[in-house]
């Protein structure tokens, strides 16, 4: 069996490998190169050194979008994971209909971000109109709007991961804890959560990176209104690229900075939660 897999490995690996190179590695390298260039179309670029990076760091809107995005990522991380974990706990109890509930909670995740953004925009604006205001008039309406939207969309997904984690906790450990007289709360914090660390690592990683690279929902829900105050980093990059003549390179430079930030935060988070994982 193992030999067969080895023999046929190229057949399985090569198509994806080429796709990965074409769709990921090449654009990535080109992207880094272009961040040092002045260009209109990506195949016709002129090297200009680091001036794009200087412009990018000088941009106050970009700095604002960084803090706004960071705050968003943290708040969404907490909200999503707390709710997803609670739901997972509830839906692994022995009761009727858990499968139906799991399906229902998972469903929002199947709808695309742009569509969700527009639909939630109608809902929020419908409510805010009662108070003679609108989503686009206050950056914090947009912020909480996006938190609600993203939570609604992602809680179900994270919940599924947590359920899988919960189900993999061996029954005898729990039983032993119970016999030793641990209370429900003690069992949750001393047994369940430490045993769940691998799932928590994954879920936190996914939700923090999702928070940072949020684009569709931001574009369709607030489009950065009012005056770019609710513009997150990904949208800011996009708008820089297309908003002004000759600023494509600056947008590209911002994209590289953005990449570095997201990778750094992702790695720090992975390391921090990994260290808490226990051997079963």
């Amino acid at each position: 069996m193992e030999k067969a897999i080895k023999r046929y490995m190229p057949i399985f690996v090569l198509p994806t490998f080429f796709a990965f190179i074409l769709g990921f590695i090449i654009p990535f390298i080109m992207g880094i190169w272009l961040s040092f260039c002045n260009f209109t179309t990506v195949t016709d670029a002129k090297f200009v050194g680091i001036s794009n990076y200087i412009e990018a760091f000088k941009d106050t809107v970009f700095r604002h979008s960084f803090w706004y995005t960071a705050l968003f990522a943290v708040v969404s991380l907490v909200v999503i994971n707390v709710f997803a974990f609670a739901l997972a706990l509830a839906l692994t109890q022995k009761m009727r209909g858990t499968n139906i509930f799991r399906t229902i909670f998972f469903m929002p995740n199947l709808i695309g971000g742009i569509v969700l953004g527009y639909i939630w925009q109608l809902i929020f604006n419908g409510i805010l109109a009662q108070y003679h205001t609108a989503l686009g008039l206050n950056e914090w309406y947009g912020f909480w709007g996006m938190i609600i939207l993203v939570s609604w969309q992602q809680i179900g997904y994270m919940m599924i991961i947590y359920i899988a984690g919960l189900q993999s906790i061996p029954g005898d450990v729990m039983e032993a804890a119970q016999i030793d007289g641990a209370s429900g709360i003690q069992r949750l914090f001393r047994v369940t959560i430490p045993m769940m660390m691998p799932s928590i690592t994954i879920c936190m990683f996914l939700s923090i990176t999702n928070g940072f690279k949020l684009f569709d929902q931001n574009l369709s829900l607030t489009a950065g209104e009012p005056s770019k105050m609710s513009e997150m980093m990904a949208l800011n990059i996009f708008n820089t690229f297309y908003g002004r003549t000759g600023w494509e390179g600056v947008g590209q430079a911002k994209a590289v900075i953005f990449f570095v930030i997201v990778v750094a935060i992702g790695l720090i988070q992975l390391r921090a939660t990994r260290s808490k994982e226990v051997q079963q």
Partner: protein
Amino acid sequence: MKRKVLSAVLAATMIAGLLAGCGGSSDSDKKSTEDAKGKVYYLNFKPEADEYWQELAETYTEETGVPVTVLTAASGEYEKTLKSEMAKTDAPTLFQVNGPVGLESWKDYCYDLSGTEIAEELTDESFALKDGDKTAGIAYVVENYGIIYNKALLEKAGYSADDITDFESFKKVVEDITARKDELGFSAFTSAGMDGSSDWRFKTHLANLPIYYEYKDEGIDNTDAIKGTYLDNYRQVWDLYINNATCEPTEISTKTADDATADFVTEEAVFYQNGTWEYNNIADVGDENLGILPIYIGVDGEENQGVCTGTENYWCVNAKASEDDIQATLDFMNWCVTSDEGVEAMCKDMGFVIPFPKNMESENTLVNEANKYMEDGKTPVTWVFSTMPSEEWKNGVGSALTAYAADQTDENWDAVVKAFVDGWATEAAAAK
């Protein structure tokens, strides 16, 4: 077992991917065999005309054998599509820029059209877009915008277009309609939507007027630093639009272009600031009920002002295309504006007024209504909004206008002025 099913599914997807790949390549093979004569690839800017361009392209291919591809990118997506299409081997040979600012990013790609047949055909030099001595673009459609109104409703309110000759008289009519809104059953203005589908009507088209008058005073046609002399007038008009509309001023950030069109077509409102291109969408009101008024902003001597007439549609030929393709494209452009089929498609089907001798009388009521101002000797307002420094500038002004509408204080208006004047200077400096 499960694993086998999974691998079967994966294998199937892989094969499907491979097949799709093959399909794609055979497609491009077909294209390259016809390369010999040159070909035309037009990236169209006007979604409402897409259908007719496709037909026209087919007719041309039947007549001459030159393949013509037309791809349409809806207005907001145009720059994005153009940027990615231009990077391809089969780049568009014919594309559009919107004026001097748009030209700035594409000038290296613009073939010099001076001396070509189509450039000679233009009825007026001013319809050529110049980059120094080079003719970089050729306008192919002339459009008008102003305040479209419903004649029947205006009459019902007890007025006619003759009562409106300047800002003061217009304001009187509008405010009277608002005062009697419940009795009449309609409002003065359609919603001044600041949603992305509609905000260009105000941040770009309405903003054209204060800029136009400032340029006129200064005797210039472009600037790096706008003074904002007429911004108080801009505020007057904006106040009028938002406070006499079908919706509350706080709601405009959520209103779309469709909402405004619906207000107008369902006779909820008399006035609708938009242009001649909107004709097909509002024709349901009936030709006899449609009229267009100039946008008065309260400037001395504006009784003689006409509607805003100009173009933001310039054809450019891709200088980086092959010789054959450039020639084929030039021939195609020329055919469009000189042959009977071409002119008929452009004037009748697409409803364009073209700046070429063969232009036909339009069936678009709004165009004919707008032309009356010209015939009466009124001075048309030229489209200077193509000199606005960037999209960023427009967005800045648009956001400030929305915020002001929600809370109409002087401080908020100062933010509009800041976005307008300071924003202009910043953006003009930022454009490289």
